[in-house]
């Protein structure tokens, strides 16, 4: 369990992390989202006791990150963003060093090593020298290092960057599996990763927390109208005109994408949240003599939500309100 209260980190006159509070329950996987330089890494560095906060605090499994730093460090496994490893060591020797550094008893050390090596698929290369590993394997060694000693809390900073698609899906499956026994914070800027793996999501921008909810909850709270996506062939102005006359329709947006094969245009129709206007829309289009190629419910993707919450331009703000 992780409880973060008003955490703040100031460098000179700029706040890298500004008054951030959130909570992660045991067994949850939290997606920690934000654009580059939003303060994700700084937050994780504070939670792992590497950087002391300027003000505010956090508790991990009930221990304060500042006052009980050593106890906190026994509870966490951390994978930093650029995966710093000792280049001159062999994988197994390195992981053995990590196990010793984490104070794992000699009796359990071998089992703990073998488990981490197995989980991260390092069995074939365990005697390889770290400097000669590919990016994907380095990432796995970094993850194995975090898993050693089975810490209650895992903090993973961008664990899938630089991997090829197959490795990415392997690592994601592993994280999902780990989420069953551990509390995980997964920092990332890859949105599909969050909707695929995470139970909850927090979004941080310019050091400030802008959202904290489940993925569905976020979508729901930001959806103020029902949206239907349609693909219609014909004169856009005429189509917009007849659609607006349908009772319950609030607005019609023509999207930029075009259906090249059918020659139609894509529109998003916003309508009252409590009325289903799909049949009326279909009828209106057919009556108007236009060609209805496709109709489906449109829901906000995490990309939309992310852009809405992190984009500072007034135009975007207006659209959101």
């Amino acid at each position: 369990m992780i409880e973060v209260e008003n955490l703040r980190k100031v460098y000179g006159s700029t706040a890298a992390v500004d008054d951030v509070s959130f909570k992660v329950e045991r067994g949850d996987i939290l997606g920690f989202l934000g654009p580059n330089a939003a303060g994700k890494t700084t937050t994780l560095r504070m939670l792992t006791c590497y950087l002391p906060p300027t003000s505010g605090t956090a508790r991990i499994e009930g221990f304060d990150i500042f006052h009980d730093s050593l106890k906190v460090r026994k509870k966490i496994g951390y994978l930093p963003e650029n995966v710093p490893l000792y280049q001159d060591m062999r994988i197994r020797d390195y992981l053995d060093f990590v196990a010793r550094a984490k104070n794992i008893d000699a009796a359990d050390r071998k089992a703990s090593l073998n488990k981490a090596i197995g989980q991260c698929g390092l069995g074939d290369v365990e005697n390889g020298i770290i400097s000669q590993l590919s990016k994907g394997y380095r990432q796995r060694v970094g993850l194995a290092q975090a898993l050693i000693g089975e810490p209650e809390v895992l903090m993973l900073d961008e664990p899938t960057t630089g991997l090829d698609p197959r490795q990415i899906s392997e690592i994601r499956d592993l994280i999902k599996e780990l989420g069953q026994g551990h509390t995980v914070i997964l920092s990332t800027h890859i949105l599909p990763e969050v909707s695929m793996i995470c139970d909850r999501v927090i979004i941080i921008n310019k050091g400030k927390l802008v959202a904290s909810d489940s993925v569905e909850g976020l979508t729901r709270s930001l959806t103020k109208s029902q949206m239907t996506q349609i693909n219609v062939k014909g004169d856009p102005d005429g189509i917009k005109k007849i659609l607006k006359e349908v009772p319950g329709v609030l607005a019609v947006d023509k999207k930029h994408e075009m259906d090249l094969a059918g020659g139609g245009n894509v529109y998003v129709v916003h309508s009252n949240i409590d009325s289903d206007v799909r049949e009326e829309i279909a009828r209106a289009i057919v009556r108007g003599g236009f060609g209805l190629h496709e109709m489906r419910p449109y829901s906000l993707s995490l990309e939309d939500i992310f852009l809405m919450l992190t984009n500072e331009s007034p135009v975007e703000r207006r659209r959101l309100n």
Partner: protein
Amino acid sequence: MRNVATIASRELKSYFVSPVAYSVAFFFLLVLGGWFYFITVMNSHKADLFGTFNVLGYLSIPVAAVITMHLFSDERRSGTIELLMTYPINDWEVVLGKYMSSLLLYVFVLAMTIQYPVFLAIFGNPDWGVILTGYLGALLLGASFLAMGILASSLSRSAVTAAVISLLVLFTLRFLSAGSIIGGALGKTFYYLSFSGQFNNLSNGLIDTRDIVYMISFIFFALFTAVRVIEISRWK
């Protein structure tokens, strides 16, 4: 203590997989051995190590600078210190562990010079008491220089910069002894700060508690400052 041993054994292993340990031992034994066999044995014909230890007093400066220069700077440059600091190990245990590894390497190299007194014993009749205190002096002197090297390494991300810092500080300290010609209290202070007094006493067979206290305080001060530097580098 277990954590200190963990850090020290990792560093010690890494010394021997890189060319550092071998090059340092080679350089050290080449210069010192050259001095011993050509000057002491062939020219002075005395069964003592006074001259050899005098050379060691300067030779151990570059040796200490080279074996400590990477200890913290490499970790800071490559970022591995970030992970190290998130393991349940105190800052002072990290500093002490790294220090112990460099000290063990130094002792290892110093132990190879035992051939000199053995050689003297075969062909002459050396005073073993003086030789032993000389070794104690060489150990304490090296230990002081290594502590300074650790401090220098904690100050910079570049191993070369760290080496330059320790060379500058240690050679300046050592050459302060030249200032003793001005005489008076100031001259004495210079002589004392330069380690020359302490080291000369010990290599002449004289054990003075003040000398030992001075060197041990120097070690303590340098290591303590290094721990603080590591702490401060995280607050910035």
